[in-house]
C-alpha cells in the first residue's frame, strides 16, 4: 500500500526507506552512545590533545583531549532530544489551537491567527536568537524557543486541514445526528489532519536541528562542556589550521540527520498522496 506497484511505486517508497534507515541509525547511535564509545565525552585528557583520528581515538580528540567520537554520539543525544522535544511541543501547542481555529471559525479563528501572525512576523532563526538572549542559553531554553516560533506553522496546517474536512457533508450529518464538537473532532477531524501535520513536523525536525546547530554554533545554544554538533563545529573552525579533521564528524552528522528527516518527510508525503 505504501510503496505501490511498479517502477514508479518502488522509487517513491525508496525515499521513505532511505530516510527511515538514516533516522533509525541515528537514533540507535544516540541511544547506544555509551556502547559506541567507552570514553566519557566530558573527560579531559591533557596528554592526548588534538590527536588525529587513530586506533585509540577513532575520530581524534579535541583541544581539551576529549574523545571526538564520544562527543559526537553524546551530542547526537542532546541535539536529537532538543529537536524532537521542540517539535513535540510545537504540535502540542499548534495542533489544538489550529484545530480550534479551523473548527470554530469566527472570533476564535481571528484571535488565534493574529497571535500566530505575531510570531510568524519574525524569521525563525532570528526569533530564536533574540529569545535566547532573554531567557539565557541551555538545551531546555533552546527547546522552548524553537517551539515558540514553530507552533504557528503547525497551527496553520492543522487549521487548513480541519477547515477542509469540517466543510464536508458527512460532518454536517454527524452534527445533525447529535454528535458533540469534541466527538466530531476526535473521531473525524483529527485523524484526517494528522497526515499533513506529520509530514510538516518531520520537515520541522530538520529545521529545528539546523537552528539548534546554528544557535550552538553562535554560542547561545547548548553550552560547553556539554557536547552539541553546532558548538563542536564552532570549535573545529577555530582550530582549522592545525586540526582540520575536527570539522568532519559534526559536519557530516548534521547534514546526514537533516537529510534523513527531509527524506522521511518527502517519502511520507508522497506515499500519503498515492493513497489519496
Amino acid at each position: 500500500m505504501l510503496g505501490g506497484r511498479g517502477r514508479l511505486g518502488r522509487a517513491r517508497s525508496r525515499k521513505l526507506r532511505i530516510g527511515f534507515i538514516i533516522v533509525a541509525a541515528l537514533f540507535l547511535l544516540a541511544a547506544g552512545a555509551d556502547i559506541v564509545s567507552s570514553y566519557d565525552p566530558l573527560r579531559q585528557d591533557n596528554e592526548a590533545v588534538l590527536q588525529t583520528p587513530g586506533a585509540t581515538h577513532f575520530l581524534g580528540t579535541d583541544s581539551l583531549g576529549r574523545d571526538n567520537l564520544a562527543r559526537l554520539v553524546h551530542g547526537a543525544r542532546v541535539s536529537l532530544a532538543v529537536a524532537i522535544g521542540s517539535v513535540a511541543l510545537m504540535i502540542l501547542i499548534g495542533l489544538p489551537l489550529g484545530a480550534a481555529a479551523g473548527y470554530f471559525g469566527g472570533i476564535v479563528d481571528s484571535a488565534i491567527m493574529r497571535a500566530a501572525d505575531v510570531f510568524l512576523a519574525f524569521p525563525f532563526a532570528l526569533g530564536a536568537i533574540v529569545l535566547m538572549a532573554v531567557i539565557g542559553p541551555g538545551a531546555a531554553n533552546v527547546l522552548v524557543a524553537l517551539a515558540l516560533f514553530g507552533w504557528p506553522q503547525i497551527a496553520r496546517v492543522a487549521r487548513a486541514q480541519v477547515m477542509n474536512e469540517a466543510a464536508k457533508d458527512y460532518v454536517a450529518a454527524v452534527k445533525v445526528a447529535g454528535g458533540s464538537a469534541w466527538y466530531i473532532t476526535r473521531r473525524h477531524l483529527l485523524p484526517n489532519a494528522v497526515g499533513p501535520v506529520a509530514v510538516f513536523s518531520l520537515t520541522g525536525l530538520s529545521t529545528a536541528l539546523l537552528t539548534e546547530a546554528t544557535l550552538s554554533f553562535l554560542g547561545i545554544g547548548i553550552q560547553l562542556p556539554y557536547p552539541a554538533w553546532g558548538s563542536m563545529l564552532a570549535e573545529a573552525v577555530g582550530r582549522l589550521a592545525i586540526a582540520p579533521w575536527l570539522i568532519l564528524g559534526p559536519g557530516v552528522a548534521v547534514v546526514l540527520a537533516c537529510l534523513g528527516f527531509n527524506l522521511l518527510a518527502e517519502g511520507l508525503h508522497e506515499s500519503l498522496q498515492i493513497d489519496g
Partner: protein
Amino acid sequence: MPAYALRRLLATAPILFGITLLLFILLQVLPGDPARMATGYRTPAPQALDNIEGRMDIRAPLYRQYFNYISALSRGDLGRSYRTQRPVISIIGETLPNSLVLAMLALLLEMSISIPAGAIAALKRGSLFDRGSIVAATLLGATPIFALGLIFQLVLGVRLRWLPVTGAGSPSSYVMPATVMALVAAAYLTRVVRSSFLDVLAKDYITAARANGLSERRILLVHALKNALAPIVTVAGVHFGFLIGSAVATEVVFNWPGIGRQLFAAVMERDRPVVVGATLVIAALFILVNLLVDILQAWVNPRVRAGL
C-alpha cells in the same frame, strides 16, 4: 485590486502593534543594566548612576515607558545604544544596507541558478541532469548555512586563496557570502521550479502549441515560463525573508558588516536598545516583504483576492 492591497495593509497594522508590544516586554526583560553599561562598568558615584537613570526614564511606570517608546518610534527614534550612546537608527542605517545588498545579490544568484536548472530538469525529466540536480538540491537543503560558509571559507579562501574570507572590502568579498546563501535557498527553489514546470508542461495548451508547430524554444520561453512563474515568485519572495532571517549566522561567519552581525554583537553585549531596534526593523521588513508577495500573488492570480 487596490481594495485587496488595502485590506492586507490594514491587517498588517495590528501585527506590527503586537510586535512592538512584544519587543517592549523584551526590552524590560532582557538582562542588562543600562546605567552601568553607559558608564562602562567602572564604579561611578551613585549620583552619576542616578542622573543617567533619570535621563533614561527607567524608573517611570511601565505604561508611561511604553507610551514614550511608541511615540519615540513614531518619530523614528529607536533610542541610543547603551554601550556607545549612538542613536540606534544610525547604527541600523549603516548596517542594514549591507545586509540588503547581500540578500538581493543572493536572491538574484539563486534565481539565476534555480530557474534554468529547474526548467531543464523538468524538460529532461528522469535524465541524469534531473536526478543529479535533485540529489544536489537535497544535500544542500540539509546543510546548515554556517557549515556551508565554513567549507567555502576553508576551501576557496584558505586553501586556494581565490577569494577573501571575511569583511566587505572589495567586490570579490561579496562572492562567497552571497553564493552560500544563494545555494542553500536555491536547493528548495529548484524543486519548486521543477514541479511548477512539470505541471505547466503537461497542460493541454502546450500540446496544442506543439501541434501548431511552434518551436520548443518558443514554447518554453513564452508560454511555459509565464504560467510557471506564479509559485516561483511566491517562493522567491518568501526566500527574501529567509535570507534576511539567516543573515545573523552568515554575517557572523563571514564577518560581514550587516545588521545580523550587529544584532548578534548587541545580544552578546546586552545592548538592549540595539537588540530591540534591529529586531523591530528586521521583523517589519519581513512583514513588508510577505505583504508584497501576497499582493503580487493576488495580482497574478485573481482567485486569491476572493478569499481573505
